[in-house]
């Protein structure tokens, strides 16, 4: 399973990939997470790839993606060609315009808007997104992801991160709020 998180520096892309990788390890799988970003601290293109497998991982840069998570138009445009035909596309609805659509199984969420309106902090968008992804993609367990989040967010913010995750998960499952 190859999954790519992509967007701008500052959107929590690398942290999302890291948390996914930790969750896979908690689930007893092999995981390899890489990151690629520009020299800018914010605003440059950023991506993080996670490879999850039952066996030893030899590939460093997945040539074909099973899941593409795009949080910016530039990321969508750049990485769509790498997504397998039967792959899953997960988009930040307010930041990505797919035109006539790509033909992929596609899910959209206004993660940044939800984070801002519901939690008063746009920075929670990646947790909303992780919950959303967790509901859609069977790559890692919900338990593993929640444990990975609680282990890796700043002390004192656990509850808000957990709530943001749950909100994204609920929307992903299509459950009423």
């Amino acid at each position: 399973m190859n999954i790519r998180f992509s967007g701008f520096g500052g959107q929590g892309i690398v942290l999302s990939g890291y948390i996914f990788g930790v969750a896979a390890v908690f689930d007893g799988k092999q995981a390899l997470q890489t990151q690629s970003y520009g020299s800018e601290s914010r605003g440059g293109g950023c991506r993080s790839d996670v490879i999850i497998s039952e066996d030893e991982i030899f590939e460093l840069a997945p040539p074909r993606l099973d899941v593409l998570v795009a949080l910016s138009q530039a990321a969508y445009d750049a990485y769509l060609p790498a997504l397998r035909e039967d792959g899953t596309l997960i988009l930040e609805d307010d930041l990505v315009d797919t035109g006539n659509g790509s033909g992929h199984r596609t899910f959209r969420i206004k993660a940044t808007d939800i984070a801002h309106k519901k939690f008063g902090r746009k920075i929670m968008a990646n947790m909303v997104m992780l919950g959303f992804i967790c509901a859609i993609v069977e790559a890692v367990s919900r338990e593993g992801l929640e444990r990975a989040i609680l282990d890796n967010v700043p002390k004192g913010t656990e509850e808000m991160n957990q709530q943001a995750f749950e909100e994204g998960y609920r929307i992903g499952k299509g459950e009423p709020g």
Partner: protein
Amino acid sequence: MMTQRQSRLSGFDNRTLFLLGDEAAAYGALYAGCDFFAGYPITPASEIAEVMSRELPRVDGYYVQMEDEIASLSAVIGAVWAGAKAMTATSGPGFSLMQENIGYAIMTETPCVIIDVQRSGPSTGQATKPAQGDVLQARWGTHGDHEIIALAPSSVQECFELTVESFNLAEKYRIPVILLMDGEIGHLRESITFPAYEDVAREERRLAEPEVESFGGEDVPPMSHFGEGRFIHVTGSTHKASGMRDVSTQAVHEDLVTRLCRKIVDACAEISSVEEDFVDGAKIGVLAYGATARPARGAVLEARRAGCAVDFLRLITIWPFPEEAVKRLADRVDTILVPEMNLGQIAREVERFTAAPVLPLSKIGGVPHTIDEILDAIRANGSGSGSTVGQRP
């Protein structure tokens, strides 16, 4: 009673964590006994400094952020002569600045560790992208005749283990050891299982008895520390066994420099570490190291599953060059494929040990090889016909 270091590090005993290669290397240094780090942060090596700055004060050690990389290695060398086990970490631009002091450490026989997390150069190049372009710089970057030890890890676990090994080799041979990481391995995360602190083998420094000289007498002479009761003279200029300068006697220079080279050349078999995986009937062999060895190994296994016999050789020690292992491979196959993230630096070295075609499979620009790229090259050349895949420019 447990030392501060034992009690802090034993908290990691046998735990499995999801770490960066950089972080694993820093912990390897701490397990090896490193108690002094001087450095200047640089992508993609900064996380090593980050861990050391956090952990060294907790284990009775010192972290110094220096004004540049020249000063960083100077401080490391000084700390070693004051009794520390010391390390610095950098990337290409900083590694270039360290070259003069690497020569000084070789000439003064100062055991220390320099981690170079290679990024795409020359110059500032692609600052955040990985490469393997400093392989020959590690060998020949400093001037004058010399030998060096350099190791290249291919996994996060190995970043830890080879950092420990680097410290041990540095002490054993009184030489700077270069851990040639690359930005890919330094910046990828995977599982690493920590050993028990007590189970890690640590080579202790051999100190000279009174009246025993610290710069001669045996190939690897014992050291003397500053401030421990005797006068010693440490100089990068040509010196006698006592350490005193003599820059005009031909035999003194010849004796010194040939000994400095001999102590490594004669121990090549002992220092060399490779992963050899040969199969019957192979006509082609793949030789790789560092990050590139990962997709290379994946491609070899896939080729074998498809019925193509392929030999695999991974260099763990880069310098001294593991020539016996390379000769063994060269004797078996008709073609050696060398994927690397540079324009053929190790391929050139391999050519010295075989008359068979050596095919560089170079890739630069900050993107690692994929399994398919290497597999295609194996398929195109696996018959032993010697056709080429990646001519050196």
